[in-house]
């Protein structure tokens, strides 16, 4: 028995693979948050006055809000005055091609295994590379322009498409929505804007790689995706971050809008630095993600969460339109001292709305992994249907898995199903694999990939491969 415990320990104590720091001269605002900092950010971004007023309103609201405490996570109090709210690699103008990109940034991407050159060559993938809040390279933009698809850093979109921004920014997650959303609205520095015009099917997967790179720099990304009537878009978000000793706050907001008959697929692979095995350092990931579906539209969230010291994240959907559909497929893996409180909210307002929730939690080490989900059927949502399945897999016996499902049904015609299971990778299973020549590390990889297969199937092909590797890497180490 003792030997297996050792196996599991060594497996689950692998150092973060992508831990390195890029040394780029930063253009920083002083630490702390006040109205001047917000004015500074807004000025840096060359924003219209209306945007500045929007930010200040959010900030003033935030001042009177309280940090939420209901999540099943614990962390020391965050000093919001001890954070840098603006940091950008020094560049006067955005680069027009890869040649103009700082070689050191390119080298960093190389280390991450996502060289831009390769990405650019990969047919069908456009990358809007975001490093520390400012876009350093944008590819495929031209091709998209021909179709009328807008795929821009949000700061550019704010300048170039003020009408769309005014109409949709904050329309799904208002600045007053919650503590972290308000903070994000006040200080967000960059992110992505996508607009797909009526009837257009975006021919490539859109992807953005986020990366936190400056010590003590809060990362406040803002993503807004609008799929106009009858259009389709698939968006990929993936991230890695370098090793740091001090906790870094990440409070992003993602808003999705699927107008009548539109479909949005939003896939995430999240691998922020999780802290060392004693729980020192790591990213605090407090994210608000929400989409709204109009008539006959569909939004699917697919996420693979392996990183961050703390994850607080509930990609949600408001099924406002009749006959709209929502999906949430999630794999959340926690190891060592990681804490994750993640899930989804499906709010059914329209008639004949359907939603599916598939959540697969994996806990190892001393970690805590919670699923928290709400299924709400409004009084007008005749014949709404929901199916939820929440599974937990435990590796070792010092980790925790928790499920907090909430159901609010205000319509008698609703059909709501919830299934939950908890299982454990047993010593017998590992021995069985060993006896067939499969080492323990590989065996755990095979087992968790089998367990999470239902979710991987939902990811775009190359993302699925990457995600599978990531799960194995997140748990592996030198087998003793």
């Amino acid at each position, binding site marked *: 028995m003792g030997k297996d415990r050792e196996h599991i320990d060594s497996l689950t104590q692998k150092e973060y693979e992508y831990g390195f720091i890029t040394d780029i001269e930063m253009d920083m605002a002083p630490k702390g948050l006040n109205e001047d900092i917000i004015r500074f950010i807004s000025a840096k971004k060359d924003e219209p006055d209306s945007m500045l007023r929007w930010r200040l309103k959010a900030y003033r609201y935030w001042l009177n809000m309280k940090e939420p405490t209901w999540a099943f996570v614990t962390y020391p109090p965050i000093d919001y005055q001890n954070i840098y709210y603006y940091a950008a690699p020094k560049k006067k103008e955005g680069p027009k091609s890869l040649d103009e990109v700082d070689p050191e940034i390119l080298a960093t991407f190389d280390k991450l295994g996502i060289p831009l050159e390769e990405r650019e060559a990969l047919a069908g993938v456009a990358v809007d590379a975001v490093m520390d809040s400012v876009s350093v390279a944008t590819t495929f933009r031209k091709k998209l322009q021909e179709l009328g698809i807008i795929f821009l850093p949000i700061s550019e979109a704010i300048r170039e498409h003020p009408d769309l921004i005014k109409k949709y920014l904050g329309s799904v997650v208002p600045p007053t929505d919650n503590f972290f959303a308000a903070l994000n609205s006040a200080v967000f520095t960059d992110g992505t804007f996508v607009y797909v015009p009526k009837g257009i099917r975006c021919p490539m997967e859109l992807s953005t790689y986020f990366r936190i790179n400056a010590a003590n720099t809060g990362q406040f990304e803002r993503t807004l995706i609008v799929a106009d009537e009858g259009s389709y878009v698939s968006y990929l978000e993936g991230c890695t971050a370098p090793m740091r000793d001090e906790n870094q706050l990440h409070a992003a907001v993602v808003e999705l809008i699927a107008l009548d008959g539109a479909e949005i697929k939003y896939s995430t692979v999240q691998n922020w630095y999780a802290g060392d095995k004693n729980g020192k350092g790591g990213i605090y990931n407090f994210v608000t993600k929400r989409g709204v579906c109009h008539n006959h539209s569909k939004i699917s969230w697919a996420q693979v969460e392996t990183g961050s010291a703390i994850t607080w994240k509930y990609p949600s959907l408001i099924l406002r339109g009749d006959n709209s559909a929502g999906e949430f497929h999630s794999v959340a893996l926690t190891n060592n001292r990681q804490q994750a409180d993640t899930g989804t909210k499906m709010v059914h307002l329209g008639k004949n709305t359907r939603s599916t929730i598939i959540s697969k939690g994996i806990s190892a080490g001393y970690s805590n992994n919670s699923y928290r989900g709400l299924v709400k059927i409004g009084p007008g949502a005749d014949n709404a249907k929901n199916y939820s399945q929440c599974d937990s897999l435990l590796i070792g016996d010092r980790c925790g898995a928790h499920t907090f499902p909430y159901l609010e049904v205000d319509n008698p015609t609703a059909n709501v199903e919830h299934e939950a299971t908890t299982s454990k990778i047993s010593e017998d299973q590992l021995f069985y694999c060993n006896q*067939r020549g499969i080492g323990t590390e590989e065996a755990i990889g095979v087992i968790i990939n089998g367990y999470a297969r239902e979710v991987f199937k939902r990811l775009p092909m190359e993302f699925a491969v990457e995600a599978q590797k990531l799960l194995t890497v997140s748990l592996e180490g030198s087998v003793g």
Partner: protein
Amino acid sequence: MLSIRNLKASIEGNHILKGINLEIHPGEVHAIMGPNGSGKSTLAHILAGKEGYIVEDGEVIFEGKNLLELAPEERAREGVFLAFQYPIEIPGVSNTTFLKTALNEIRKHRGLSELDAMDFLTLVRKRMKLVDMDPSLLGRPVNEGFSGGEKKRNEILQMAVLEPRLAILDETDSGLDIDALKTVANGVNSLKNKDNATLVVTHYQRLLDYLVPDYVHVLFDGRIVESGDKTLALELERKGYDWIKTKAGDSK
């Protein structure tokens, strides 16, 4: 091929094996019989490297290597295969994925190239015929929802694909009806050649009607108390284990 010398082992303070000696050469089929609790399964587990047992004395040499020093997966890659008495279920992992991963680990160890999906499926389909297994079981999760007979066939299928030097069958006959028993035994027989060996661990003689051993050993109270040819198994069947118990008692 396999040389067990004075092997003594215990589990949680209980002495189970009290000095086992056994020589197995290539091309041979050995059967180990014995009453419940005599240590048959313990011997099979220790050879495969299952945790929880403490080897107190003796050694096991397999193909010139000290077997007890190798990790379970290394033993498997060297060619030791254990057909489990109770095959383990692995939800979510398809039989194909499991078996392909195993085969390629073993091939890598042997310096062979890994098989791609097509070559692998060709091989598996061929081997499945040996055990008359329903092809739909390939896509199903490992042993999950399999009947007792299907699980045992699946063990022999794995053996057929992995081609071990030494196959240890731990109570493979338990829970099988007579038709399944014949199928499984025929499968094992057809895999026999001059370079590999089989160690059959069983309580009953009936499997040995179809899987004919060259040698039969009777294990009692942690020791091999009697060895002989296949007629020993028939004698046991006729006289029962009490005969051995008395005999072992006399020799003490």
